[in-house]
């Protein structure tokens, strides 16, 4: 349907009003909310992700699109709750204990939601045990951890070790990110993945959740 394509285009333009109006229009035309979400909003965000990866657009455009997506989601959300339409897997995300930098973590959360994941954002300065507890409680598939300081990086290892201790490491995957960490560090601490930016983090979460 052309209107679904129009949503994707309006999203890429960061046109909140148009996205909202098109979502309403499609719902009035009895298009399923899940189709509006998958074929309109998420499809649009996937295009945004690709363009960002190819350096055709930059962070401001990505975030404008994300805001427009949220506008569309606001219209859809009550219908989701009523219809219990499932999202993709659940991801518990946060900045590790001792660290209060959360811009990077926020960007990853935004892009994960844009890709259709259900995100539980624990905020910043999150103790290791809380990551694990909430992930278990929420039946999450992935824990995402962010750190911007070399002094707070070891907290990531603690989360991975706690998962191992409880034999949850195969069931709940881990991904890390932040300026001082790297793919090598992820391997070193036994994390399942390292995301070098928000789009890359989404790609990894997709891979991790399709593997399991």
């Amino acid at each position: 349907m052309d209107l679904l394509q129009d949503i994707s285009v309006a999203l890429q333009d960061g046109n909140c009003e148009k996205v909202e109006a098109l979502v309403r229009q499609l719902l009035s035309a009895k298009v399923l909310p899940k189709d509006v979400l998958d074929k309109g909003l998420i499809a649009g965000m996937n295009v945004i992700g690709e363009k960002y990866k190819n350096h055709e657009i930059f962070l401001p455009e990505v975030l404008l699109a994300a805001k427009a997506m949220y506008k569309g989601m606001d219209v859809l959300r009550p219908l989701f709750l009523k219809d219990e339409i499932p999202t993709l897997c659940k991801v518990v995300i946060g900045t590790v204990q001792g660290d209060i930098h959360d811009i990077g973590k926020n960007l990853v959360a935004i892009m994960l939601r844009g890709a259709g994941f259900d995100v539980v954002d624990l905020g910043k300065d999150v103790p290791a045990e809380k990551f694990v507890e909430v992930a278990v409680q929420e039946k999450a598939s992935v824990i995402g951890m962010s750190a911007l300081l070399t002094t707070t990086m070891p907290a990531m290892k603690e989360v991975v070790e706690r998962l191992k201790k409880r034999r949850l490491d195969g069931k709940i995957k881990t991904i890390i990110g932040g300026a001082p960490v790297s793919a090598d560090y992820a391997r070193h601490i036994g994390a399942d993945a390292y995301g070098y930016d928000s789009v890359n983090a989404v790609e990894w979460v997709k891979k991790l959740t399709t593997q399991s």
Partner: protein
Amino acid sequence: MNEIIEISTSDVVPVEKSVMLLQGIPLSERMSKNAEQIFLHARDVFKKCAHPAGIVKDIPQKAFQDVYKGQSFNAENTPVPEIALHADDLALFAVTLGRVVHDKINELFESKELALASMLDSVASAGVEKAADIVETKFLESLMTKGTVDKETVVMRYSPGYCGWHVSGQRKLFEYLKPSRIGIVLRDSFLMEPLKSVSGVLIAGKKEIHIFEDNYPFCSECETHSCQERIRALLDRA
């Protein structure tokens, strides 16, 4: 010199290019119209929310080497102690933009003004570096006034967390400088609050003392290698 430096907000408003880099936009590109508008908006918000302040305190060579040693977590071989040894003067410094701008960034994120929040964060990051530039200049001016340096002298700054200086060095730096006088506190993880703050040492001396190559073992972990950019800029100075 042991004083609080008053800094005007208008003096720390960053130029577009420095913000573009922080937004991941290469300088060879142009900001889109939408991005440009957000930048201008963020800059206006910044002017209202940023309350920059700085603090500088002279430190003798021996005391600095002790501060630098910190908690003995520095890399084995690092450039800063050597540069400091050849310095004419040393001072510790800290600058901050205050809490309001940080709170505003969070508020914008929470209200889903995502692009504006992110842009304001970048404007503030570039702004706090400008504040540090101002403190650097003030320090040099004070040395000129005292007559302890000549026209050949330059000042460069180095911070814990960079160039092999372990971030735990913040502890001793804070004990000596007491940046709480301008509202900066140090968390147990050595993170400064408010977040948009910078601290370190100001090293005054001849240009040559600041020149080093980025081939230390820890340089491979550095993403920016901005030291070389700073050295090039230094050499370009008349």
